[in-house]
């Protein structure tokens, strides 16, 4: 099978990740931060080492600011529900995922949507700038759209937040491991990550890097310390880590971080981008293909491409490709806001997303299937 659904999760994992998970299951299967025996302490030491490594990678101030969650959605919920209260105002981008939109709607606070321009970042920045109010508490935006691949001008938006005294949260689900993200340089207060995507970790793990205090907790429970107290600890990471951590996934994430560092984030992005660029160029003139974004520019687009095949729904097109052994994702990709902004809310799109394990012969196979209309005749 040719797997082009890497924006949902990367299916091919580096051998190092698989070995790290096995190592955790064989040699570190005690609960970290719960007991005093040697195996529990040894596991806790390793988890702490991974927090440090993660903090270093993303330029976080302290290792304890690295919080392990169940997934990126949970991390976003922790931030959105944790910092907002009645009377606050929020700005989000027009390309946000439901992981941002739904928790935000649930809080009941007022929010505005800043339109992302697919060609000119200056227009996107202007769009954000216009929406600030005196009570704007938080700005949340994705580092890169999970539907159209557009990379947002994070650093400039973060600077606006600093100047106006708002908190800045970034959904790094698609950007992490593919584009450089730095808490300090990019002015990020909260970074939410999906390690099972760009870091090739197992599913079931999210990361929240919190440089600012989160007043309200969403989940409370056992943290291994201060057990006699009825309230959550105030200090990170335990404040946001109730219950047992997914140690094998964290070990897998650590190996995935090493994989990305060793290969080089620029090299990974460059290789993935060239595949998407080639795909775009090869299908853009086909009358039966509809593309929604300008030709992707390096640095402005993540390796994600959306299209539709004329006369077929996105789901039908994905089914044809599946029969040909090509895995893509169709529909709304849990991001109706993004689809609304490009008028694809009713149809959805077919999304192609690549990883470091895809190659040109695979994209060429997809191109040849899309070129040959016979493949879509006998549906």
């Amino acid at each position, binding site marked *: 099978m040719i797997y082009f659904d890497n924006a949902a999760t990367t299916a091919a994992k580096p051998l190092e990740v698989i070995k790290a998970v096995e190592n955790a299951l064989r040699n570190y299967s005690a609960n*970290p*931060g719960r*007991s*005093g025996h040697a195996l529990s*302490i040894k596991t*806790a*030491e390793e988890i*702490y080492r991974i*927090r440090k490594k993660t903090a270093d990678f993303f330029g976080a101030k*302290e*290792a*304890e600011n690295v919080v392990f969650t169940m997934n990126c959605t949970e991390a976003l919920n922790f931030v959105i529900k944790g910092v907002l209260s009645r009377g606050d105002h929020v700005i989000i981008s027009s390309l946000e995922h439901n992981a941002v939109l739904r928790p935000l709607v649930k809080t009941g606070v007022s929010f505005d949507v800043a339109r992302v321009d697919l060609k000119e970042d200056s227009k996107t920045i202007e769009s954000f700038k216009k929406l600030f109010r005196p009570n704007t508490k938080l700005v949340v935006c994705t580092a890169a759209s999970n539907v159209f691949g557009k990379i947002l001008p994070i650093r400039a938006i973060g600077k606006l937040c600093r100047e106006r005294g708002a908190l800045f949260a970034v959904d790094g689900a698609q950007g992490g491991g593919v584009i450089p993200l730095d808490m300090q340089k990019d002015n990020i207060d909260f970074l939410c990550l999906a390690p099972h995507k760009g870091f090739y970790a197992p599913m079931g793990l999210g990361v929240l890097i919190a440089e600012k205090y989160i007043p309200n907790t969403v989940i409370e429970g056992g*943290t*291994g*310390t*201060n*057990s*006699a*107290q009825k309230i959550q*600890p105030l*200090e*990170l*990471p*335990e404040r946001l880590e109730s219950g047992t951590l997914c140690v094998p996934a964290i070990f897998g994430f650590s190996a995935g971080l090493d994989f990305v560092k060793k290969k080089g984030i620029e090299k990974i992005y460059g290789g993935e981008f060239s595949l998407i660029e080639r795909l775009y160029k090869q299908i853009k003139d086909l009358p039966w293909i509809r593309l929604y974004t300008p030709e992707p520019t390096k640095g402005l687009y993540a390796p994600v491409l959306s299209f539709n095949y004329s006369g077929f729904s996105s789901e039908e097109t994905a089914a044809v490709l599946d029969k040909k052994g090509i895995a893509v994702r169709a529909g709304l990709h849990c991001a109706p806001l993004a689809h609304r902004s490009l008028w694809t809310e009713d149809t959805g799109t077919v999304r192609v997303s690549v990883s470091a394990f895809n190659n040109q012969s695979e994209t060429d196979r997809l191109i040849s299937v899309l070129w040959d209309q016979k493949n879509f005749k006998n549906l």
Partner: protein
Amino acid sequence: MTRYEIVTGSVTKALKGRDILRKNGINTRVERLAENDKKSGCGYALIVDGNVEKAEILLQKNGVRVLGINQRA
């Protein structure tokens, strides 16, 4: 030499404190509290032999809150 346990807020803070102290030449290790504190319950501590005042200053200076210092038998 008197042995002390420096009580920290969590295993993460204890491990951070361990790195800080070792970097500053103070030999230490992380252990579970010998006895549960009645107010706060179970937790983790840094074990040091002597030098406890210097250790405490270093920890506080580097963002590791010291919740208490107990003498160990």
